[in-house]
């Protein structure tokens, strides 16, 4: 898969994650009930773990997904590295939150799980992108050299 396609995949996944986060943010601030087949979404969203330093985790997720999307717009290796760092950090935090849901809150939020699945996919694609870019020689601008015409 080319770097362009990997960036498109990252962009699409980041937008999907942003959509999930945006729905959780909208539900939180509008007071509308979440569509929830697992039955625990409200419990999780009203738990003390739904905020970090007073900021709803869904808001942090929304910002992070947009940041990852922004890194997919650039072909630079630095952008790929920043995107991957956000994704891996977010995935580790997501795993922590799954443990909290199962072991402490005793309720599962399907939207949080959906976000975790998206993060896991993003981690795979981001790792592959980083691996490919790191293997290529870079020019002074940080971009991989263009293929010679003809």
């Amino acid at each position: 898969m080319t770097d362009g396609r990997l960036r498109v995949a990252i962009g699409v996944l980041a937008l999907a994650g942003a959509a999930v986060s945006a729905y959780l943010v909208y539900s939180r601030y509008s007071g509308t009930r979440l569509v929830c087949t697992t039955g625990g979404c409200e419990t999780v969203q009203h738990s003390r773990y739904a905020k970090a330093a007073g900021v709803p985790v869904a808001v942090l997720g929304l910002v992070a997904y947009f940041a990852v999307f922004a890194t997919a717009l650039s072909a630079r290796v630095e952008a790929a590295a920043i995107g991957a760092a956000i994704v891996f950090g977010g995935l580790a935090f997501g795993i922590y939150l799954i443990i909290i849901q199962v072991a402490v809150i005793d309720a599962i939020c399907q939207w949080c799980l959906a976000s975790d699945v998206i993060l896991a996919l993003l981690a795979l694609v981001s790792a592959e992108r980083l691996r490919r870019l790191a293997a290529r020689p870079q020019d002074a601008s940080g971009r991989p050299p263009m293929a010679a015409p003809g």
Partner: protein
Amino acid sequence: MKRFLHGRNLLFVGVGSVAAVIAVVLILVSVLGSSSAESTSPAPTTTAATGSNGTTGSAAPAAPPTVPGAAGTAALFRGIPQQLNQLGNPNAKVTMIEFADPQCPYCRQFALDALPTIVKEYVRTGKVKLVLFAINILGPNSDNGLRAMYAAGIQGKLWNVASLLYKNQGAENSGWITDDLLRRIGNSIPGLDTEKMLADRFSPEVDSALAASSQQASNARISETPTFFAGRPGGTFRQIPVSSLTPKAFRPTLDSLVK
């Protein structure tokens, strides 16, 4: 080590390090934030390491002394008079009655989606008084919840216990209404003597309140929960026709009665 940390490897190590820092910071903030939320609540009366469903397990972390939703419930009912199963101005122009089972998922939906707005717009303003007739319609596990609700009602906290039961509701008849859950709910309610609530569950006052609720449900021919009635004291009470469990569904009836 020096040979390892250059070029490609340095990039991977850098990304991994930044990711680790992001994760550690977020987890620390989350853990510390949840700890500070706990420390503002009354001290727990139990130190047993139990899960939120009341089961003991060595793998589970120490149970929090409070339950999720405690702060919101406390804020919702703060300063509103409660007398056994009544919430609001005793001389309100309108009385709204709810028949509910603590295990009923639709009662939970009402408690989460409609009740906060009704309390804010109609109860806090003194226009409407709410009366909760808690009944057992779904099974044996409801009984422990009903008794705890009325026992808390003796201390003027029935609505707080009901709200927290709904916020922490488990699957019907899975045995989720345990003494441990009730204790943690009690610990989450400012001003409630948890041990007294647990002891009062089997008092003659609670027996009498349960019998009265059951009689009211029988008189009103309640076959499902939640069911709502509204009317003016001394007048006729009519069932509220609700198409959904949102504030919008209750406004026409309540608005016409408070005029």
